């Protein structure tokens, strides 16, 4: 797996908070990363009323451009790190220990996890960007509850995975 350079937590946190403000100031749009998948559903021919509604109207297609930009940022971050850029299916030693070693089973596992992320983000109205970074910044009640639920469920899930894979959690 590509090893990327890390900033100190407070520098990285400041950068993320400042980024959110910059996006607002430049474009008057809220930070968010999960709605774009609804826009993709709408533009790839889904006739479901939810995707044809106002939430995913064409004027919100800027999300698609934003999402397309993120891997460019990831690539630049990787190429400006000391180590080499590596294409790999490894997720680092912890996940590689906890997930099935069989590639097909691992792919299925990751797909199911993705299903939960996609379904859950739409049911909750946002993800770790829109709810946890932006929503909690605004001290919005729904976002604080959603973020607490994200963390509690993730902690229980990973602790359970560690337990079943015989790791010392």
């Amino acid at each position, binding site marked *: 797996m590509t090893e990327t350079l890390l900033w100190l937590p407070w520098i990285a946190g400041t950068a993320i908070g400042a980024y959110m*403000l910059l996006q607002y100031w430049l*474009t008057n749009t809220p930070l968010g990363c999960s709605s774009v998948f609804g826009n993709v559903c709408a533009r790839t021919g889904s006739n479901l009323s939810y995707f044809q509604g106002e939430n995913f109207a064409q004027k919100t297609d800027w999300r698609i*451009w934003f999402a397309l930009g*993120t891997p460019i940022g990831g690539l630049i971050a990787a190429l400006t790190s000391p180590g080499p850029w590596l294409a790999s299916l490894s997720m*680092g030693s912890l996940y590689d220990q906890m997930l099935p070693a069989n590639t097909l089973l691992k792919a299925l596992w990751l797909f199911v996890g993705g299903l939960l992320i996609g379904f859950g983000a739409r049911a909750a109205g946002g993800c770790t960007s829109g709810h946890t970074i932006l929503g909690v910044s605004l001290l919005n009640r729904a976002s604080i509850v959603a973020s607490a639920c994200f963390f509690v469920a993730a902690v229980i899930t990973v*602790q359970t995975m560690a337990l079943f894979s015989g790791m010392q959690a």
Partner: protein
Amino acid sequence: MRHPVVFLLLGALFGFVLSRAGATDPQIVAQLFLFQNVHLLWVILVAVIVGGIGTQVMKRRQIAALGETSPIQFEGKPWTKGLVVGALLFGVGWGLTGVCPGTATTMIGEGKFFVLFTLVGVLAGTWLNGWWRSRKGG
């Protein structure tokens, strides 16, 4: 400034920052949930403090977005019926895969291609939610 190129550049900047924060490393994410390394917790905490102070200042000074006249409206997301269950499902998925929607697309650029399986799942899960809503008549 809602030009596609602006959003492409903003996406690149956000992806770069997420990577430098360690958010795109599933190892660091797993360590957070196992309470072995709270690096990401500090990142999120500082981001929320900076974001909280920043949005308050921008609200009070009635700052308008570049090229616009009316002040930015910082609207919180509404409370919905499925919020708690949805957020819990999201958390399970986050734990199972070590990625969230923003880091997932970023990781493609880092060569972390396992994330492609998750991304197909996220798209399918999003569609499934739309289908679920239409089934219930919403």
